[in-house]
């Protein structure tokens, strides 16, 4: 078991065109660091210089925006689904 991470189209050039990848870690931040270890350059695309999420990226754990949870500290466990979604849509 592991965490399923949905990759948005603009980042798929870094994941060998995979729409989902498996990740591991105890928190969202861990998962991002884990992704960076395997797909170099990915973290810089979704986080700014101070390792915080960029303004125009949203992350969801099992469909819930992590800003309603504990942000990047939000805990994750095996079987969870984590979605990385560009924020500018809709309206």
């Amino acid at each position: 078991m592991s965490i399923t991470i949905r990759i948005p189209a603009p980042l798929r050039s870094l994941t060998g065109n995979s729409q989902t990848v498996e990740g591991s870690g105890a928190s969202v931040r861990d998962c991002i660091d884990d992704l960076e270890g395997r797909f170099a350059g990915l973290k810089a695309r979704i986080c700014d210089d101070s390792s915080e999420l960029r303004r125009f990226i949203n992350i969801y754990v099992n469909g819930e925006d992590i800003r309603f949870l504990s942000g990047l500290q939000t805990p994750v466990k095996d079987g969870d689904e984590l979605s990385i979604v560009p924020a500018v849509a809709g309206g």
Partner: protein
Amino acid sequence: MSYAKALHCRECGREYPLQPSHVCEFCFGPLEVTYDYDAQRKAVSRRSIESGPLSLWRYRDLLPCDADRAVDLNAGFTPLLRARNLGEALGLSQLYIKNDCTNPTWSFKDRVVAVASTKALEFGFDTLACASTGNLANSVAAHASRAGIKAYVFVPSNLESGKLVGSAVYGATLVAVDGAYDDVNRLCSELADKYPWAFVNINVRPYYAEGSKTLAYEVAEQLGWRAPDHCIVPMASGSLLTKIGKGLDEMAKLWLLDSVQTKISGAQALGCSPIVTAWQAGTLNIRPVKPNTIAKSLAIGNPADGYYALKVIGDSGGSAVASDDDEIVDGIKLLAESEGIFAETAGGVVIAGLKRLVESGRVDRDELVVAFITGAGLKTQEAVVDKINKALHIAPTVASFEEAIAQRGGAIAGNQGTR
């Protein structure tokens, strides 16, 4: 022809060709259409616009699509009405209502969808889609029919029945999603990555959003080629407000207006007011909320353009204001009773917000104010059905009529004099 030049990332400035994409591949900032303003300035004049059709296509040279192949339901060029009665009630000497209830599907969304659907055909799509709080779904469904293509429209399942019927009637695939609009929107972002659809407010969003500029163009033209002093605009994602700002700025840039010093204020419902909350806190960081308001058309808890809306409000000297559900209903009734315009809940938000802004001195009583009424009230009857006078139910006799009037406690009105 269109004078659109490129897509430009509002954050990092990277440029992209005119293609169906909405975010910068590097920083995820929003992409916006830029134009060849020098060429536009040579081609566009007050006169060239005035000789155009009585629809938004009179501004064809300022839009990012080829109007010769427009998907055209005759959207736009809606009435701008001087509102003396409402102005008097609110204490404003020069109040105007921009009444976008009169669009083909009875909301301003016909403006954005006219542009988005035209652009979608240019890009070769045969299917439109959208995430919607209702009005957009109605418009996408209608324009797809007009264009002879398919549509999938996604809405929260708790919408008013008028908005559900107003989509399904066109034959679109109406998908009611268990969840709030923000859940619908996240789902649609994922679907947009998977299916070759023109999602009007996702992959075609840069073009779509430009349609809202026509509201600003029209207001300025209808005022006799002058900018208003103050605009009051409803905010959901915040996109409309930013495009009214952009539209006015462009008119100055193209020498269609002598000067633009318009304050732009935004109104939200208290039960979904993340932009107003950030404004009041003096921050550009918007915290999303879980909406709880009768103003379902504005119930976006995670507003995509909230950040830019805050900047437009701040730079223009405007303000942001939120009103509760009772005030919203009162706003709907006040507009209907004073001016004969039946607006949906978003219109109630605007009137209630304007009232608050006047009372708190943030709108000056002598300013030329334009209130943007963006959708029609028959779509959201649930909001007012229990708050208005019931019909007098009588037998077909004069006596029964007079008895019923007396029971309600009033004299029978009416007098014919010479005028």
